[in-house]
């Protein structure tokens, strides 16, 4: 690694960690309807939205009503997107005259964007019109991220409120999250990207004649606006097929750095938002510390693995540096590895290199990041509510050991909460292991795998993990666009999204109703190094115990077979 590599790493952390506390406070104020410097501009728009939709901003909802509103909204979004993708051939803004998608692919794509997964079984420039990109996919990029944020604030309120029956208003939370939380930042990033050379145009695909005299079609489109929300909203669905490895999607070192930082900026900020909700920023710092610890463990492992010489090329005649196969030489090893770790830690799923080509151990880091449930920063809102579930599990497991009924921030964890926690614990095993096992035991679906042996297994495992974790990144080398995988992965994404959201909302409702015991010397300490260690170990233990056997058959076996 060169000094440039270290500079990239430092710049990345600075860009994320420095503004996060400020941004977190801003999100708190915005979501609680307090006045911010944006209120004079966006306030009238916000009120206009409520008037138009007939929403009373002061009306609060119980968790059931909140969940129902959320489901209805997501269902409507799915139906709309599904229809647009099926019918895009008949709709305007389709200069490349792309036909409608095949129905299982349309289903998969629609589910994928509604669930903030952005798994792409299609290639953007080859099968999605400008209209589908803008009206269909980009809209879902915004609202799926806003949905995650809404669920998170509902949970925050559940923990912070005492003896309360309501969690807020879903419509209001969605409006505020989109309007204040996502749009302004996206506007800034999109402008920055346009400056760096990302296209933003309705013009037709450009035609060029190469030096050899061959005709080349160069896809264009309104890319910058979609890429901004793709990164900031932890969506990850690229405008172009190869995502941020494409020179139009990620043209320069600066665009690479800012796109990279955008992936986890909001997830980190939201941890501080939580601290403001519970009026105790020590909780935020503990959670960020745990996330950072997990991130650094994964990052260091990945970097180390990518800089190892390949044993199969162990020949004095071959001079080896870090392998570059599957990476953009524009970005180099460090920036690619950093992206692969970040995009899988936060459920983003955009890539700037091919994960299929990573060394087995770095591929495993990407897998583990997702397998622990996308809680290392994670998706917008989704990452933190997933992390809070882990916090509750850690508190319940170890909390008894102080001789009290386990309590988190004064809220008792009882049978109902544990029941809901167990449901969320089952999501990843069901999505990855059960769906993956079904796919692995049928001859048709198995054919999607392009490599034999352990690496092939990693490809399959990665696809089902990515879908269930709502990450959406692809390992590559996996022919996902078959009716079977489209439907199964779609199912995985639905389980991975709503298998968390519904229990989390129920949990929020149940916690809100409880009294809050005073937090003092005899309360379970949920800040400080001891708890950070406990939480980190709990996450690794729960994830590790669930997935170690499968990892042994995939990346671990591959790593050992390669003679590393």
């Amino acid at each position, binding site marked *: 690694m060169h000094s440039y590599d270290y500079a990239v790493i430092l710049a990345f952390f600075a860009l994320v960690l420095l503004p996060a506390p400020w941004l977190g406070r801003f999100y708190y104020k915005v979501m609680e309807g307090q006045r911010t410097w944006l209120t004079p501009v966006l306030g009238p728009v916000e009120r206009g939205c409520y008037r138009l939709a007939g929403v009373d901003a002061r009306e609060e909802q119980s968790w059931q009503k909140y969940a129902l509103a959320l489901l209805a909204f997501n269902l409507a979004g799915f139906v709309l997107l599904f229809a647009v993708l099926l019918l895009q051939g008949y709709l305007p803004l389709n200069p490349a005259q792309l036909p409608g998608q095949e129905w299982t692919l349309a289903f998969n794509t629609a589910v994928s964007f509604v669930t903030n997964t952005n798994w792409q079984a299609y290639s953007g420039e080859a099968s999605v019109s400008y209209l589908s990109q803008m009206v269909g996919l980009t809209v879902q990029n915004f609202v799926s991220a806003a949905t995650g944020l809404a669920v998170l604030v509902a949970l925050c309120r559940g923990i912070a409120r*005492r003896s309360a029956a309501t969690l807020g208003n879903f419509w209001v939370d969605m409006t505020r999250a989109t309007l204040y939380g996502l749009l302004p930042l996206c506007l800034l990033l999109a402008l920055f990207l346009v400056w760096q050379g990302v296209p933003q145009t309705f013009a037709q695909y450009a035609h060029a004649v190469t030096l050899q005299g061959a005709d080349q079609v160069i896809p264009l489109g309104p890319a910058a606006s979609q890429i901004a929300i793709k990164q900031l909203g932890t969506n990850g669905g690229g405008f172009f097929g190869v995502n941020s490895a494409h020179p139009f999607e990620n043209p320069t070192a600066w665009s690479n750095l800012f796109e990279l930082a955008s992936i986890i900026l909001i997830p980190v900020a939201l941890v501080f938002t939580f601290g403001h909700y519970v009026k105790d920023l020590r909780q935020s710092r503990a959670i960020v510390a745990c996330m950072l610890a997990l991130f650094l463990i994964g990052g260091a492992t990945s970097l180390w693995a990518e800089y190892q010489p390949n044993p199969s090329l162990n020949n004095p005649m071959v001079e080896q540096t870090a392998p570059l196969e599957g990476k953009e030489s524009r970005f180099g090893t460090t920036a690619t590895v950093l992206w692969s770790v970040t995009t899988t830690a936060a459920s983003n799923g955009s890539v700037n290199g091919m994960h299929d080509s990573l060394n087995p151990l770095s591929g495993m880091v990407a897998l583990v990041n997702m397998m622990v449930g996308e809680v290392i920063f994670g998706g917008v809102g989704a990452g933190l509510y997933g992390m809070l579930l882990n916090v509750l599990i850690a508190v*319940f*497991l*170890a*909390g*008894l*050991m*102080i*001789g*009290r*009924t386990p309590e988190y921030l004064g809220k008792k*964890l*009882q*049978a109902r*909460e*544990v*029941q809901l*926690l*167990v449901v969320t*614990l*089952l999501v990843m*095993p069901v999505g990855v*292991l*059960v769906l993956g*096992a*079904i796919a*692995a*035991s049928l001859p048709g679906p*198995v054919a999607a795998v392009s490599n034999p*042996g*352990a690496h092939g*297994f990693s490809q*399959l495992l990665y696809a089902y993990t990515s879908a269930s974790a709502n990450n959406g990144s692809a390992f590559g080398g996996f022919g996902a666009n078959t009716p079977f995988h489209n439907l199964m992965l779609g199912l995985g994404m639905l389980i991975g999204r709503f298998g968390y959201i519904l229990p989390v909302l129920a949990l929020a409702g149940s916690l809100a109703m409880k*009294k*809050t*015991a*005073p937090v003092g*010397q*005899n*309360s*379970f*300490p949920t800040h*400080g190094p*001891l708890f950070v260690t*406990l939480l980190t*170990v709990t996450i690794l*233990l729960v994830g*590790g*115990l*669930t*997935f*170690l*056997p*499968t990892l*042994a*058959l995939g990346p*671990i*076996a591959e790593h*050992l*077979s390669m003679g590393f």
Partner: protein
Amino acid sequence: MNMPIPVAKPAGKKRAAGVKEQPATSIASLWRPALVQAFVKLDPRQLKRSPVMLVVELTAILTTLLCLLPDTAVPTGVAVQIALWLWFTVLFANFAEALAEGRGKARADSLKAGSQGLNAMRRKASGEFEVVAASSLRKGDVVRVVAGEMIPGDGEVIEGIAAVNEAAITGESAPVIRESGGDRSAVTGNTRLVSDWLLVKITANPGESTLDRMIALVEGAKRQKTPNEIALDILLIGLTLIFLLVVVTLQPFAHFANGSLPLVFLVALLVTLIPTTIGGLLSAIGIAGMDRLVRLNVIAKSGRAVEAAGDVHVLMLDKTGTITFGNRRCAAVHAAPGVSSKELAEGALLASLADDTAEGKSIVEYLRQLHNFNEPDAALMTPVAFSAETRLSGVDYQGRVYRKGAVDSVLAFVGQQRLDMPASLSREVDKIAQSGGTPLLVCTQGRLLGVIHLKDVVKPGIRERFVELRKLGIRTVMVTGDNPLTAAAIAAEAGVDDVLAEATPEKKLARIRQEQNDGRLVAMCGDGANDAPALAQADVGMAMNDGTQAAREAANMVDLDSDPTKLLDVVQIGKELLVTRGALTTFSIANDVAKYFAILPALFAAIYPQLGVLNIMQLASPQSAIVSAIVFNALIIVALIPLALRGVRVQAASAAHLLRRNLLIYGVGGIVVPFVGIKLIDLLLNAVHLV
């Protein structure tokens, strides 16, 4: 102090004393019946209460069947060993539960024996009495009990007064007085009348009596699970489900890699991964906790209350009897100006000689140590007892009137105003009051002699207990009818955190509600009928056995020894119960790490021999690795039985300290111990050529 009056030892005494000495029923005498019970409990209908162990039993049955189907990959000898150890795992868990039950049952059985074939005289509608079986009595029935008979059930005295020997329940041989009305009207079934007769209204249906509750708490099959136990059960079921998915999906994944995994090994993997250690001991921990309570002579109406005791934030303790000895004692006397100390001492002695109360006796005792008196013959004195009207007591002796009493009463008696009192005496009175004591004035012939300083004596050791409680984050509130000044002085001496002075039942109830509204859990004890609402409101309410039936019904615990200090022990037991469960859960889950390192390389040896790198324990062969893991998994249950029955000690320390300590022992220990254990078992198995 109230010394028990010696009485002729009643017939029940011997057995009762045997019961009281619980250690006699040691583990050694219990293990034989527990062994039998371990097999009886294999019945799936019983095991259903412990889902993790039910899964183990099902896998044991499956493995036993698989032994009959030869598999080339697994030698039959190994399969048989695995099947055997799976059965042992279930048996060990059953044994732990049976052992825990045995201790409580031994006591319950001896109590039950007393009620066999008991008859009762029930009053008919016509007013006549008829003989019926005690077991047929219903709530509301009225029975007549005479000296020498057993009281047939829990009830309330509606007529009569009698001495009752409650040794069978409390182990205390001194009979207690039970009478209708007032605060001493409740009687307990299976206690013996030693004098007179009583008319008792039965207040419990069969199966709901104190005795029944006691038995129910310590019997595995009938015991109601406590809230935390239910929550933990759900988590254990969840973990079991996850590991079931992990193991079931391994076969298709192995097929994908062109391999196949022997079913017996997969079963072994499943059983080692699911939390069998805590799953097997959970019930034993709960029963043993309740048994510790029963041995303290506290009957909880449900396990829920015991757990709540561990969670308590605030202890409301009555000053009298809990923090101080029940009565005030003479600490000093101060003479009025112009009165010699000898004169005062004589006056005070005479005014107290006829006073039978503990306070009066303490004055006499104190003065006798101070001076040598020629005490007058009792026959020559005319005692004047305390009356509600005069609020004075004393004697008339040789035509002289000696009186003592509260300041206002004596002043009224001698016809003086407070302002007329000599300044130095007035100051002394104030000083005593401010220090929390009670000033009693002594007078003779209309002249004030001086003041007696009566003082509450704080129980030795109580201050240290409060310090411990504070370390655990529990606040103590002293409840007293005293004025705020007096209360504050005692509070400072005893080291309580807060005081509720001039307490009335209403104020007590309001305070509990206020604490609860702030999210705190409150424990208290009480005995009077007017304590009932507060006892019912408190999260943990402990009634005294010699209290009223109303209090006993409102409370969720009854202390048979009527010792309010025991509330502190109950808190301790509640905490130990929770810590023990938490510690073993953590231990159980942490164990899985080592088991993976033992089993995974063995399991995948045929598919990816490279994974042998993971065999960091260097176990001899795949078979020995798997058998060692399963043997460890079974033996660790046995090894932890003593801990489960005894409970993890809870030190007085902050939550952070307790957490760090227990995480180190049971978390880190849980990761390390199986690495060592499995390796040792592997060495042993190979040494004796079992695999």
